[in-house]
């Protein structure tokens, strides 16, 4: 892999990796990183079920932890330890879960590589066909015979 490609991949992973960002944490940010467990399929921030038995207490917990000054990662680790990994709205970026993040890009990159190779082959085939046929080598004896035949032709 070239240096440029390696750097590109690293930047992509850093951009995708939530823990790579260091910023002051907001309750919204944490709520969006958590999935409501009421079955709505939405994040804790988005769930608007009336008196939701899951979303409302989770929001309270988030507020408490943010108020305590914990970082995003620390808060998410606490939630993960308490409720299990399913509480997180995205797969973590470690172990087997990393495949969730990487595989789509690997597939597209592999597809792009294959496509570039295929198109190169096809364009080469086109060039090969388009080019004029290679000159045929004529032996010395053939050339003399041809000259003799041409000399016989009436002018």
């Amino acid at each position, binding site marked *: 892999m070239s240096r440029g490609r390696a750097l590109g991949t690293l930047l992509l992973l850093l951009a995708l990796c939530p823990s790579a960002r260091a910023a002051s944490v907001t309750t919204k940010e944490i709520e969006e990183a958590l999935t409501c467990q009421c079955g709505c399929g939405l994040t804790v921030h988005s769930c*608007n079920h009336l*008196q939701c038995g899951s979303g409302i207490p989770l929001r309270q917990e988030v507020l408490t932890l943010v108020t305590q000054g914990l970082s995003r990662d620390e808060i998410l680790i606490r939630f993960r330890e308490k409720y299990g990994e*399913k509480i997180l*709205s995205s797969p973590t970026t470690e172990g087997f879960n990393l495949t*969730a*993040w990487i595989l789509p890009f690997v597939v597209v990159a592999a597809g*792009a590589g294959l496509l570039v190779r*295929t*198109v190169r082959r096809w364009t080469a*085939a086109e060039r090969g066909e388009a080019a004029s046929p290679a000159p045929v080598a004529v032996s010395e004896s053939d050339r003399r015979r041809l000259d003799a035949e041409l000399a016989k032709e009436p002018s």
Partner: protein
Amino acid sequence: MHGSDLGTLALQLGWCLALYATGASLYGVLAARAEFVHSGRRAALALFGCVAVAVAVMLHALVTRDFRLEYVASYTSRTLPMSYTVAALWGGMAGSLLFWLALLNLSATVVHVQNRDRHRALMPYVTATLSTISLFFLSLLVFVVPAFERLDFAPSEGSDLNPLLQNYWMMIHPPALYAGYVTVSVPFAFCVAALASGQLGDDWIRSTRRWTLLSWFFLTLGNVFGGAWAYEVLGWGGYWAWDPVENAAFMPWLVMTAFLHSVMIQEKKDMLKVWNVSLIILAFALTIFGTFLTRSGVISSVHSFTQSGLGPFFLWFLAAVLVGAIALVGWRLPILRSQNQLESFFSREAAFLFNNLILLGICFTVFWGTVFPVISEWVRGVKITVGPPFFNKVNAPLGLCLLFLTGVGPIIAWRRATPKNLRRNFALPLACGVAGGLVLFALGMRQLAALVSFSLCLFVAATVAIEFYRGTRARQALVGEPAATALAHLVSKNHRRYGGYVIHLGVVLVFMGITGSSLFKEEVQATVAPGQSFSIGAYTLRFDRLSEDDDPHVAITRAEVTVLRGDRVVGLLWPEKRFYKRPGQPTTEVAIRKTLREDLYLVLGALDPPSGLVTFQTFLNPLVTWLWFGGAVMALGTAVVMTPTAAERRARAASPAGERSPSVAEEG
């Protein structure tokens, strides 16, 4: 004899007919016995009659509230409005399968009528394929989830339709999506027929071109309507949550979009035959996969029907479809292999190939994210969630690449783009995109994703505008028509090309809507007493009063909220809380003030009657209307593409033996 017996009988007879149509068609074509081919075709037509009878019986039972039928008692009530009572046909498991079957057989009947005297070599296989699909759905309805199951007693009242489904979108979204799913079966059936018969030229593609477009049209509408429904009903301020069932509807759309582009290369250069048949097979398989997702309960979704034992049946059918189709492709590979040649990387053909790559890349991402929780549980034994943040992060860069290619495709030359051609066609659109980005930056926009997205939107819009402008100018110069007439004639002469540009314009509007509403959304939660106000963006909202309505079906608590900009009243909003009495379920009805610039989206949250305090959740969603408008523009463009030009109508009239489509050269 109870009406339900007639329905059951019709389905059982239909099952026999589907089996016979499949067998007779295959035997007829393989043994060269034309009478069996005709008989199979007539059986397929009769099958539609049986399914129509079954649907009529079910509709009659629904509208007469015949609660002796388990289905009617489960999905309607005496107080349910008639429109939703009819829509209950597709509101439950058995009814939705019956509806699917009815649409499939309606399509099959149209295909049989259209091709009565055409494609004699293909049609027996088409009949067999469509009848096999019908046979699968009929088997479910006859043996697994009987649609006309009767109760031992007649309850005085039904359980009612799920309140979330009691919305006008229920009458529009599922039929559109089902029509999209079902019509994929037609190109799939022709593809199988081409593989089985060995007639692998462009015939099957040309014959099904309008079906492919029709399917794409309905899938587009189905997805957009689904988003609009979620936006108006679920009350979380968004329209797309990457729910597994939303994903299931999105994936066939992506694959069909790829097919619509790559098929142009086959028509023009007789290439990519293996690729194109593979895309159609994949699109059909994904429609079955989507049906499996909604009905298996294997992946949790807000859209799921009640969990049932149908999952394994769909999985087996899906496996059979894939194995059968792959075997056919493998068998025909020597004929399918074509002399693939491209003149240059810088060509429309290459741009379409990259467009296919990105579309399938997004499709894979959506599939992977949807099934990853199951894979994770299988591999690690740990349940995890793959929610919107994952899909948004991974798909955003791919989506922007796709948007860029949307602009490149139409203006790069076929075969080989020369440097002069590139400069001539790309300079102005690129300048528009870059200038637009700089202006937005100067106006204070600092989000890179938004700047890139809006710049690309401008780039694509400019490519479309320039194409229309150049075409109109050329026609004016050639024929001397006024601009408006020249434009109208330009479009009328080549629906495929200019309809396609309109679709691209729709795509631009959709991207603008998504970018604006995703990246610039504001939200405020406020608890106020009557007479008190709160603010969001440039708006002040004053909570005036609560009122109540009560009828036998639903109890409604409604808030009246005055919307002000500065001191000026600009509107009134009435968000509601509803309590549907029969299922005993509360819902929220949002109130939305829509403008081209932004939606003011108001949700009535918690109520505290003793104190009179009310909590409102309020969202300011920029550019959402552009998204819906973009969907409508895409549908309009597809309608233009599907409509035959005068030249095509004349050609078809002169050549009844085969449907003709315009040559690709005509597209420029």
